[in-house]
């Protein structure tokens, strides 16, 4: 089989601006209409994914989402297991994003802690959690982020951890700022931390974003709203937890993560074998 010649690729940074540059009010109206339409289809008995692949208010998804429904398949053995991770893969210090440089990063120091659970509430141990985020000024260290906010020489914004026996992870970091993007005119992302999670089954793999309580940008953001129901969107909001706040040191947020089944990932608890 021969490969067709690949078309000349556009420079990645040129793809970041949507061509139509709609107004925020037009985007907000699209979001409201898309949620209402999804609700209507679900009420009529249709099965829709929790996160909508077809969500045109998020302009760059228009040409990048599949148009066919996914094929339902029984997982094979390899898909029911997942790469094995352990402390060998990650140094303990990688979970503290404030210690990666010689000085202290600027911004509001925070702790984010949570548990990784399966759909039956059981802790997932020894799993890899990776995070990345903008700095306090809303700037990513990535070269393609040219938003004119300062980089912080003492903050990169990437961390990793391995869950403990209770499925727990914990990061010390800086609260990220909101940042502008070019989906539409005056588009701003609510502050968020990207999370990448492995479960005990490869089918449970998830990449998501954690948000912060009461963000005024929630209703305006097409990415947050690609999740069609309010209840599910709220699962992505970290909960402020004063018990996690350290006196005179950092603010605490709790963010538990539940991976999806399927039923084939249910194994008898080991103790009962």
């Amino acid at each position, binding site marked *: 089989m021969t490969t067709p010649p690949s078309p000349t690729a556009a420079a990645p940074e040129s793809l970041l601006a949507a061509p139509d540059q709609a107004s925020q009010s037009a985007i907000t109206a699209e979001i409201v209409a898309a949620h209402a339409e999804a609700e209507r289809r679900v009420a009529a008995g249709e099965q829709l994914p929790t996160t909508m692949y077809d969500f045109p208010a998020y302009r760059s*998804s228009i040409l*990048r989402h599949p148009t066919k429904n996914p094929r339902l398949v029984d*997982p094979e053995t*390899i898909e029911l297991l997942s790469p094995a991770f352990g402390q060998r893969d990650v140094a303990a210090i990688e979970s503290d994003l404030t210690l990666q440089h010689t000085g202290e990063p600027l911004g509001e120091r925070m702790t984010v802690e949570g548990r990784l659970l399966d759909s039956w*509430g059981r802790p997932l141990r020894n799993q890899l959690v990776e995070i*990345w985020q903008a700095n306090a000024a809303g700037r990513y260290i*990535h070269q*393609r982020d040219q938003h004119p906010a300062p980089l912080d020489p003492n903050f990169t914004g990437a961390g990793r951890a391995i869950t403990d026996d209770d499925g727990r992870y914990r990061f010390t970091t800086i609260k990220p700022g909101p940042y502008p993007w070019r989906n539409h005119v005056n588009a701003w992302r609510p502050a968020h931390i990207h999370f990448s999670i492995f479960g005990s089954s490869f089918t449970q793999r998830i990449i998501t974003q954690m948000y912060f309580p009461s963000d005024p940008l929630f209703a305006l953001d097409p990415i947050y709203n690609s999740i069609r129901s309010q209840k599910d969107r709220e699962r992505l909001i970290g909960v402020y937890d004063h018990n996690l706040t350290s006196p005179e040191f950092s603010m605490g947020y709790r963010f538990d993560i539940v991976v999806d089944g399927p039923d084939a990932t249910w194994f008898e608890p080991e103790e009962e074998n």
Partner: protein
Amino acid sequence: MSAVPPRTHTPTPGQTVGPFFAFGLQYPDMNQVVHPHSPGSLVLGGTITDGNGAAIPDALVEIWQADSDGSIPRARGACRRDGHTFTGFGRAFTTDEGRYEFWTRDPGAEPGKAPFFAVIVYARGLPNKLHTRAYLPEDEAALAADPLLAGLAPDERATLIASRTPEGGLHFDIRLQGEKETVFLAY
């Protein structure tokens, strides 16, 4: 096995990986499931394209596979390669031309089953992950017996079978949308 009890917890929804994942998800030799100079090593690669057939330069692919004898890797160290332990997991970012590449070796399977790589794709502009499979092309009997492939039309089936390159590598393109759209999976 006893009946599966009802689920008690609602899954956390997924979100797009966004444009700026590279500094968060990169680690040394992440696309080298095996060392390039090890016996049986080959390149598995392809291009990821959108609904216009344009290359996607900001996508991320992960593979997870059995070893060539069909065994499931249980060794740790996928994030800190030692050059010889087979962990079965790899991660690759697409280049500015939309191409991803792994160094790996052929997966095996249980007897009679068709070997494949479990594949997940993420990209800026893709609201959530997509699962698929890249089957090896050789074992026609096993491919014919595969329950997933058996239920697909020929053009859909073709999107899941990698082709063998003259150098012994594997070529597997992923089309997120449009003509010859890759078949994606739900479990």
